[in-house]
């Protein structure tokens, strides 16, 4: 098991070192691809062989838990898909060897930070790694060095850093609460905070939790702290958007969920769950409002990410076996599906040379294969059957009916329908709208690097929609006990 963990971290670290050496563009591409394949293999192995109970190693600094492994697996999957897609996409941008070295080095660093964060047993160290993901990815967002992308990466850095400082304050207060019972010095771990939570006054627990929720919620893109997200996701190169959305958001949600778990069994638990559900529903509302009148294709996908993160948070907020299982299933489905959508959006943006939905027309006539994949992805992403997200969203709604927050279920259902209708309306106009103007006809041909990851993700979400393996459900139940 430890070998899998070592491969998971050392391979991308080695790849970063290699990226510093001079070499052709192709070498950087393939080194990154190899690193991603190794990471995917290692994360899958870790998921399968790790014991059901969390295990602490390396003097208590690293925790190998089913939930952490799940988040790592989601990140590993997105990293692999993105690495395949990057080869095709970055070739269109015609990078020099130096630029390729910088891009792939940063991408590997970004992936590494997301693979490390879920395994941190010390909430403070987890916070620091999350902060590092922000710094690395800010450079990736601004990679194209256009005015908009630099503006987006600046906003991203400032908003997320100040949000994260609130969660640091929350962590300090959590630890302080513990010092009244465990003495001034005790090891700061998830387990220690959990064990002492019952003795800390509920009001302090709740204050700390709300600070953590706002802080990591900023990073996860929950409304109303989401304002950086549509900018960062729309201005970075498409592979970066896929990583930001598919992998990073889950990693930040992990922090919220672990702190929520710490409160379980205390008097602060019920209001904390309520706060999580409220913030999730509000994210859904904001996403729905902005999806209806959206004009930018990647911003459309970004608001859909806010919607999905809202649903995942709501799932954990509902809690119980079904809520937790649904939310975890939603994490993987979101990772796969959102990667597919950003890949499609990247292809469309490059071939139509525009980010605007109005300029993208008759996709199916020009691109029958990728067009079909993208359209199916769009049906899937709105939660329609027979795809994975349908399964996970239904599970979460079912969990909601029996939870203490059942009031929100009908509201969520209405918002999901609004999102479905408006999302499909945008795709209707892109697929069946009037012809584009003559000078804007797309002529670009897609290489297999741009199509293969789309096939892979669509197949996976279709399989996950048609068949929810019983082993996976069992795994979610076990993981739910030790978040």
């Amino acid at each position, binding site marked *: 098991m430890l070998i899998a963990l070592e491969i998971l971290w050392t391979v991308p670290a080695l790849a970063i070192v290699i990226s510093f050496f001079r070499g052709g563009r192709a070498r950087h591409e393939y080194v990154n691809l190899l690193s991603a394949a190794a990471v995917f293999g290692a994360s899958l192995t870790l998921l399968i062989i790790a014991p059901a109970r969390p295990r602490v190693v390396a003097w208590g600094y690293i925790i190998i838990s089913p939930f952490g492994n799940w988040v790592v697996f989601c990140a590993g999957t997105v990293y692999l898909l993105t690495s395949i897609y990057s080869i095709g996409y970055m070739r269109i941008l015609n990078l020099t060897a130096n630029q390729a070295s910088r891009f792939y080095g940063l991408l590997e660093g970004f992936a590494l930070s997301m693979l490390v964060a879920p395994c941190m047993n*010390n909430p*403070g*160290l987890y916070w*620091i790694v999350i*902060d*590092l993901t922000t*710094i690395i990815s*800010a*450079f990736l967002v*601004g990679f194209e*060095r*256009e*005015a*908009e992308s*630099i*503006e*987006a*990466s*600046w*906003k991203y*850095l*400032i908003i997320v*850093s*100040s949000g994260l*400082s*609130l969660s*640091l*304050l929350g962590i*300090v207060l959590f*630890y*302080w*609460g513990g*010092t*009244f019972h465990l003495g*001034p*010095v*005790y*090891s*700061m771990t998830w387990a220690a905070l959990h064990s002492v939570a019952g003795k800390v*006054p509920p*009001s*302090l627990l709740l*204050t700390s939790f709300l600070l953590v929720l706002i802080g990591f919620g900023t990073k996860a893109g929950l409304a109303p702290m989401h304002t950086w997200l*549509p*900018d960062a996701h*729309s*201005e970075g190169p498409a592979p970066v958007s896929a990583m930001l959305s598919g992998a990073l958001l889950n990693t930040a949600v992990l922090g919220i969920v672990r702190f929520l778990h710490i409160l379980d069994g205390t008097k602060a638990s019920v209001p904390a769950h309520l706060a999580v559900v409220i913030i999730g529903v509000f994210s859904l509302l904001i996403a729905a409002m*902005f999806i209806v*009148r*959206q*004009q*930018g294709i990647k*911003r459309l996908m970004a608001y859909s990410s806010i919607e999905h993160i809202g649903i995942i948070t709501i799932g954990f907020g509902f809690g119980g076996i079904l809520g937790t299982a649904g939310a975890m299933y939603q994490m993987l489905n979101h990772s796969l599906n959102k990667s597919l959508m950003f890949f499609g959006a990247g292809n469309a943006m490059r071939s139509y040379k525009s980010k605007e939905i109005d300029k993208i027309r008759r996709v199916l006539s020009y691109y029958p294969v990728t067009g079909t994949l993208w359209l199916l992805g769009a049906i899937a992403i709105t939660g329609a059957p027979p795809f994975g997200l349908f399964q996970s969203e239904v599970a979460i709604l079912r969990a909601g009916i029996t939870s203490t927050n059942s009031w929100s279920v009908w509201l969520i259902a209405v918002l999901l329908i609004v999102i479905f209708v408006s999302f499909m309306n945008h795709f209707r106009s892109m697929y069946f709208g009037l012809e584009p103007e003559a000078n804007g006809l797309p002529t670009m041909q897609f290489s297999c690097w741009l199509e293969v990851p789309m096939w892979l993700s669509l197949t996976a979400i279709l399989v996950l929609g048609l068949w929810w393996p019983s082993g996976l459900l069992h795994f979610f139940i076990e993981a739910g006990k030790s978040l």
Partner: protein
Amino acid sequence: MLTVPLGSLAESLFSFLMTAALVLSFVMVGSHWLRNHIIAFATESWVIAVLSASVAYYGHYQELYIIAVLTALFRGMLLPYLLLRLVNRLDIHREFRPLFRPASGMLTGALLIVVAFALSSSIGDKLKVSNSIALMALTAMFGLMLIGFLLMVVRSEAISHILGLLVIENGIFLGSQILIPGFAILLELVILFDLLIIVMTFGILVRYLKTHAGTTSSQELQKLVG
């Protein structure tokens, strides 16, 4: 939390240092010259370093001496130096279009301190904390945090935003020394390192902003909406 009984001299010293940190943050709210902000920030960091050393001395936390030295070096000298260099390179020396005038800014700051005090007293009541130093630390922590956010909200220059963020972090750092002096030393070291990376990253990005977007004022960064 500091559990050793403190003499009246120590208590006065701690209160004085925390008050000084708060007052210095008002210098930042009240002035529109970036150089003044940076000097106030540097002084505030030195005050916090002295506080670390005092906590180390009176509370017998030897590790905090190292933290005190590092705080003085990193926050008190290196970060202000990097920021000053940035101000000189960009040739932007003051806030041109502040949202608030100095007087209104300071009044708002004072109100925020009152809010911070009310919040900490209520937490203190709930936890039955009678230790006045702990309450003072909570007030200073929340107060600096709110003032940091105020700086970020009412200022539009990119460097003011960085400084606002640093004030917030200073607040957390200050509070955590009193409330949880036994907080893993490793963590504080890493946070210092993290701050350094953040400031360098900000430095690079601000220069990109100037080159590619032509401005470093958030009031002119209006391209991305909706």
